[in-house]
């Protein structure tokens, strides 16, 4: 019975496929799974948007939207209708083809990332051997669409926003990859299913999630920072800051294309939360062994929504970082720490089992954190200004 509840979607899929001839089954199976993903994650996007607006409101001592439907739950519907019916304005001097393709490209690439996430036991769309690499390949391609959007608008604010966004995304890509690399190193595989299986073990009821190890915790924090920057979320939302650059690279987009960008951003946020859950929080495994009866997909989506809540919490708390502060932070703090984390993880592997390795690794990481904070983040003393005249 518990088994059935856990595998209910898989059972449903097989039941539907049993009505079809054997030749068609793989293709229709894939089609059904893809269609499910395309329906479920935008629904989660609607929930996330509503949660964000209401959550931010509460954090700012106000209600969020509460007029459309009880407690405002139909607000995303209203927003969707609004963006569908708005006039789609394309500036005359804009590059029409690229202007059109940018949001399309973004949404397509962002949805591709879901193909490798294990959303429950036996619930991965494509169980690729190099699944993590595929995911990062997709997330790297989204930068190109950001650039396309900014450049094709023929608007200097858009272009500036796009360049800043791309610079930011590239800078934080390296720490992102390095912090995920630690997990690959300790598991020995890039297959996301294997990574979850390695975490799905319990000692004294507590799970073996990677976040509960010193290097895993540090990697999780660095991963969180890097993904916040990759999705252009506050506090790293300078490229789309309303008060800075109108809307940055979104400026010349209206109506449904803007909605597509918005969708792409939030779906991207959900997808990197999904990856973070898989890598660090144990994917679909339960927190305690006695809670194993709860279906695995509930744990996965619960953890993803918790990550979204943390994103929203960060957005409500922190002021926006300036571009140079952001870049300094990436190159002078996050990157050295991720490299060090890699070495600490290797040290952990080479020391034997026992309490000593916990102590040593934690000590190294804490000392490194404090030292890097003093050294990497020290602000220079400003002397008299020097001027450079444009020739």
């Amino acid at each position, binding site marked *: 019975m518990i088994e059935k509840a856990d595998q209910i979607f898989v059972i449903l899929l097989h039941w539907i496929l049993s009505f079809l001839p054997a030749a068609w089954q793989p293709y229709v199976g894939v089609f059904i799974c893809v269609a499910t993903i395309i329906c479920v994650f935008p629904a989660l996007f609607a929930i996330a948007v509503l949660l964000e607006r209401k959550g931010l409101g*509460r954090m700012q001592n*106000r*209600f969020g939207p509460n007029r459309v439907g009880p407690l405002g739950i139909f607000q995303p519907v209203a927003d969707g209708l609004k963006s569908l019916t708005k006039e789609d304005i394309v500036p005359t001097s804009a590059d029409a083809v690229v202007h059109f393709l940018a949001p399309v490209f973004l949404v397509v690439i962002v949805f591709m990332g879901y193909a490798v996430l294990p959303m429950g036991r036996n619930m991965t769309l494509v169980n690729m051997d190099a699944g993590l690499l595929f995911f990062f390949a997709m997330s790297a391609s989204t930068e190109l669409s950001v650039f396309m959007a900014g450049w094709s608008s023929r608007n200097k604010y858009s272009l500036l926003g796009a360049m800043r966004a791309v610079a930011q995304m590239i800078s934080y890509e390296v720490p992102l990859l390095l912090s995920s690399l630690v997990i690959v190193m300790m598991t020995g595989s890039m297959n996301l299913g294997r990574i979850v299986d390695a975490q799905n073990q319990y000692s004294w009821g507590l799970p073996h999630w990677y976040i509960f190890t010193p290097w895993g915790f540090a990697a999780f924090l660095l991963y969180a920072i890097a993904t916040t920057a990759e999705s252009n979320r506050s506090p790293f939302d300078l490229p789309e800051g309303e008060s800075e650059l109108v809307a940055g690279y979104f400026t010349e987009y209206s109506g449904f294309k803007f909605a597509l960008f918005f969708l792409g951003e939030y779906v991207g946020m959900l997808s990197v939360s999904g990856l973070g859950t898989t890598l660090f929080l144990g994917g679909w495994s339960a927190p305690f062994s006695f809670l194993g009866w709860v279906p695995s997909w509930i744990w996965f989506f619960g953890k993803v929504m918790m990550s979204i809540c943390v994103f929203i*919490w960060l957005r409500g*708390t922190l002021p926006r970082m300036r571009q140079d502060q952001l870049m300094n932070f990436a190159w002078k703090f996050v990157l050295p720490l991720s490299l060090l984390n890699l070495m600490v993880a290797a040290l952990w592997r080479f020391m034997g089992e026992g309490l000593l390795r916990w102590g040593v690794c934690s000590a190294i990481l804490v000392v490194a954190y404090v030292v890097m904070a003093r050294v990497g983040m020290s602000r220079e003393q400003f002397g008299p200004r020097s001027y450079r005249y444009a020739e």
Partner: protein
Amino acid sequence: MFGEGLLKGLAETARNFAGSFVSAERLTTVQYPEERLAPIEGTRDFPFLVYDGADWEAGLRCVACQICEKECPPKCIYIEKSVDKKPDYTGKPQIYPARFDIDISVCMSCQICVEVCPFEAIKMDTEFELSTTDRFGGLLYDRKELAKSNEHYHKIHPTEAAEVDARLAEEKAKAEAKAKAAAEAAAAKAAATAAKPAGGESKA
């Protein structure tokens, strides 16, 4: 310690979030129009004419002196004097305004008309939900719409109204005392002149 500020900030936001469900201090929104904040005493929106008693025509304090019309900066008041007279609060017959129009789309709520009125006849109201769909005459208020009772004035500006009432009562008492003294003097003089010819007659 690097990152301490971040954690403190997160704690504060979390406190805000959790507190907004339990305490009104952390959720200060007043959901207009279902809930309204009570206006404070000094609220002022647009003028109204005060009348004493029950009948608005008889008790209207305004005597059409037209001072407010002249002092109004955007000239939103239009007054036409009446031909006949009616008694005011001291009993003295005064003219009254046959027309008193205020165009509240022009009125800038400066309260100058209130400050210059010598008869405490025009005061500031606290109504602001006055929007109308009639774009031609909907915001032009005439005498009948502007006249509101003294009880209403007490309700919206209690201290001011009490003070005005005290002053008016005092003046009325003074006027009555003066009238009584004048009446007594006149009666005494009448009695003296009545007594003198009587005395003169009895002498002769």
